[in-house]
C-alpha cells in the first residue's frame, strides 16, 4: 500500500550535506543484495503493517513450493525510495524491483534497467487477465508493459461526513453546482465546507487531478505525462485553475488550510470531528479514520462517493484518479536463474487468492478480479465493495500526477500547485510554469 502520510513524512534524521550527496553517489550494497545462489532471487519490500505481514506470508508460502527461494528485505518507505535508485544505479538492484509505476518506471525503462514483460505476459495471458484492466496503464511505457500490479488499489475518493451534511441540509455533491451549494450551506452554518491539508501540497494536487479530468477528460493529462509539446497549455488546464480560484473565492477550504499538514492527519480529524463536510483524499485514509476517528466509521457516519462532474466537461463521473496499486518489475541485470525464480513467484506467489484474501481482511481492495464474495463478507463490506466496483467500472484511472511525472517535473508541480492554492499564481502562470518542465 502506498501510504501518502508515510511517503511524505519528514525524513527523520535526514541531514543533507555535501557528504550525503557523495555517499549516495558511491552506492552502498544493500542487505539482501547478495543473492548469489543458483535458484534464489531477491526482493525489497516496504515495511509497515498490515502489508509487511501479507507480503512476508506470500513469500514464505512461495518458498515452500520448491520453485526456488526468494529473499525479502523490508525497508521504511522514504529510505527505500532513495536506496532503490542508488542500488539500480550501482547495478546492485534486487531481482524484483518494487515501485509505483509511472514516471519512475519510465526512467528505469529508458535506462534499460528493467525487463520488458510484454512477451512474458503474452505467454501467460491468463495471469494478465486476473488483474483488473485499469491498473495496467501505470505499468505501461510506450505500449510495453514493464511492471506487474501488486497489492491493493488506492483511488482518491470524495469522503463526506453524513452528520454534517444532514445538519446543513445538503447531500453528497455529484455536480459542480451541488458542490458550490454544499460550500455555501456549510459556510452559512459555520462549518468548514472542505477539509484540506494544503501545507502538504500533494493534497491540493488531488483537487487539480480530478478537476482536470472532469473538465478535459483523462486525455489531457495523458498528453502531459507523455511529454507532448505544450500539453500543459491546454485550455482545460486554465479552466482547472479557474475552478480553483472559484473555490478559493467562495471559501471552500477550511480556514487556515494553508497551514494544515497531512502528516498529523488533522485533515481527517476535521472530518470525523464534525468540523468539516467534505474531504477529497486517498482511499488509505479510510483505515486512518477507522482507527483514529473513534466510532465515526463504525457508526456509518463516513460517506464516500465520486468527484463531482462539471457542466460541459468531458470527464465522466466514474473516472478515477489516484494510485491504481503498487508495481513490481524485473531487474535487467539479474541472472537468468534469478529471473526464473522471480517469474515463478509472479505466477504462483505474488497475488494468489490467499494473498488477495489477506488484503481484504486488512481492509483494502486487491487489484485482482473475482474478489466480490470475499469483500462482501468483510467488516468494511460497503466501502470495499464500492471501491472495488468503482475500480472495475472506471473508464479510466489516471495515476497520481506526482507519480506519473518525471521526478523533476513532479517537484515543480508541487511548488506550483501550492502557489495556485495560495492565490500567488494565476491559472495562466501555473500553466506556463508547468509547461516549462516539458522541455528537455
Amino acid at each position: 500500500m502506498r501510504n501518502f502520510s508515510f511517503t511524505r513524512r519528514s525524513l527523520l534524521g535526514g541531514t543533507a550535506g555535501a557528504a550525503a550527496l557523495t555517499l549516495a553517489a558511491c552506492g552502498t550494497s544493500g542487505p539482501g543484495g547478495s543473492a548469489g545462489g543458483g535458484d534464489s532471487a531477491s526482493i525489497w519490500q516496504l515495511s509497515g503493517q498490515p502489508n509487511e505481514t501479507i507480503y512476508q506470508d506470500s513469500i514464505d508460502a512461495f518458498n515452500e513450493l520448491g520453485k526456488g527461494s526468494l529473499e525479502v528485505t523490508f525497508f521504511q518507505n522514504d529510505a527505500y525510495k532513495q536506496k532503490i535508485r542508488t542500488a539500480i544505479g550501482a547495478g546492485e538492484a534486487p531481482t524484483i524491483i518494487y515501485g509505483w509505476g509511472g514516471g519512475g518506471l519510465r526512467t528505469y525503462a529508458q535506462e534499460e534497467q528493467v525487463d520488458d514483460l510484454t512477451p512474458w505476459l503474452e505467454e501467460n495471458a491468463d495471469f494478465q487477465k486476473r488483474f483488473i484492466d485499469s491498473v495496467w496503464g501505470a505499468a505501461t511505457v510506450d505500449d510495453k508493459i514493464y511492471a506487474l500490479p501488486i497489492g491493493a488499489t488506492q483511488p482518491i475518493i470524495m469522503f463526506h461526513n453524513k452528520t454534517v451534511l444532514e445538519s446543513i441540509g445538503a447531500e453528497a455533491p455529484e455536480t459542480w453546482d451541488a458542490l458550490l451549494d454544499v460550500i455555501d450551506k456549510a459556510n452559512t452554518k459555520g462549518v468548514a465546507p472542505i477539509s484540506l491539508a494544503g501545507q502538504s501540497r500533494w493534497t491540493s494536487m488531488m483537487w487539480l487531478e480530478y478537476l482536470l479530468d472532469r473538465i478535459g477528460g483523462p486525455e489531457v493529462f495523458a498528453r502531459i505525462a507523455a511529454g507532448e509539446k505544450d500539453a500543459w497549455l491546454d485550455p482545460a488546464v486554465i479552466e482547472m485553475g479557474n475552478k480553483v480560484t472559484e473555490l478559493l473565492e467562495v471559501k471552500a477550504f477550511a480556514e487556515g488550510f494553508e497551514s494544515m499538514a497531512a502528516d498529523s492527519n488533522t485533515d481527517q480529524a476535521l472530518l470525523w470531528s464534525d468540523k468539516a463536510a467534505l474531504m477529497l483524499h486517498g482511499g488509505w485514509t479510510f483505515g486512518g479514520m477507522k482507527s483514529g476517528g473513534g466510532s465515526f466509521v463504525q457508526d456509518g457516519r463516513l460517506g464516500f462517493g465520486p468527484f463531482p462532474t462539471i457542466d460541459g466537461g468531458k470527464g465522466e463521473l466514474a473516472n478515477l484518479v489516484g494510485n491504481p496499486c503498487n508495481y513490481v518489475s524485473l531487474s535487467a541485470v539479474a541472472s537468468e536463474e534469478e529471473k526464473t525464480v522471480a517469474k515463478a513467484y509472479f505466477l504462483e506467489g505474488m497475488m494468489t487468492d490467499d494473498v488477495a484474501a489477506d488484503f481484504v481482511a486488512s481492509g483494502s481492495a486487491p487489484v485482482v478480479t473475482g474478489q466480490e464474495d470475499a469483500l462482501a463478507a468483510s467488516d468494511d463490506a460497503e466501502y470495499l465493495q464500492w471501491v472495488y466496483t468503482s475500480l472495475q467500472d472506471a473508464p479510466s484511472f489516471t495515476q497520481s500526477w506526482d507519480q506519473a511525472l518525471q521526478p523533476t517535473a513532479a517537484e515543480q508541480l508541487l511548488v506550483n500547485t501550492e502557489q495556485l492554492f495560495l492565490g500567488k499564481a494565476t491559472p495562466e502562470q501555473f500553466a506556463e510554469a508547468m509547461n516549462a518542465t516539458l522541455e528537455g
Partner: protein
Amino acid sequence: MTTTPAAPHRERLQLSHLLFAAPALLFFLIFAILPLLGVVALSFTSWNGIGAIEFTGLTSWTEALSRETTWRGLLLVLLMIVATWVLQTPLSILLGTFLAGQQRYRGVLAVLYFLPLLLSSSAIAITFKSLMDPNFGLASGLGLPFLKQNWLGDSTLVWIVLLVIIAWQFIPFHTLIYQGAVRQIPQSMYEAAQIDGAGRVRQFFSITLPQLKYTLITSSTLMVVGALTYFDIIFVLTQGGPGVSTRILPLDMYLTGFRGNEMGVASALAVILVVLGLGLALGVQRLGGKDASASQTEGA
C-alpha cells in the same frame, strides 16, 4: 617523506606528530576530503542517479547558476545567517552572563533553558508543526484565538516562525558557551571595577563584553556555518514552502538532488555551499583580528 639532514631532531618530532595525527587525518581524508572531491567531480557531469554518469563539462554549472531558485536560495540563506545572528547572539550573551552567576535559582533556570539541547531537530519541527495547527494546535487547545494564525501558509509569517524555532533550539547551546566564558573572566577585574565605582551595566560593557571577544568569534562561526546548513527543521516544517519562500540553498540542493534526481546540478550547488561556508568561517575568524596571541586577560 623527505629527509632534511639539517634538522634531525625536528624530523623525528614531525614523524611522531604525523603518527599521532594519522588516525584523525585518515578519517578526515576518507569522510571529508574524498567526498568533497567526489562532489566537485560530479558537478561537471550529468547524472540522474541511475543511468550512466556523463561528463558534460560546465553544463551543470551553467544550469545551476541560471536558475532563479539558486539565486533566491542563496539570498534566503544569507538572510537566514544574518537574521539568526542578530536574533541569537545578544540573547545568548545576556542569558549566558545571567546564568554564569552562582546563585542556586540560576542553576535551576539553566537546566530549564538547556532542555531544547536534548531534542532532535526533527522532533522539534514535528512538535511545533502540531502546536501551530490551525484547528488542533495551541490555539484551540488553550482557547487563545490570537494563536490561530496562518503560521506556515504566509510567506512572511513563516520566516518569523522559522527564526524563532531555530533560535529556541540553538540559543541554549550558545548560552552554554557564553556561560562558560563568563565564568572564566577573573573575578579580580570586577572587584577592581567595583572599587573604581563602575555599576553593573558599566561592568558588563567594559569587562564582560570585551572579555567575550574570542567566545563571540567561536559562537558566531558556529552560528554562521550552522545557518548555512539548516535543513532538517525547514525540511520537516515547510519543505521550502509556502511556494518557494523558505527554499534556502541547502534545501534547494537536497530537493534538486534527491527529489529531482539532478545530481550534477545538486553537486554544483553543494560546491557553492562549501566555498561559501569556508569563506564565511574564515571571514568571521578574521574579524577577531590577526594577532591571535594577544592576551585575553589584558589588565587583569
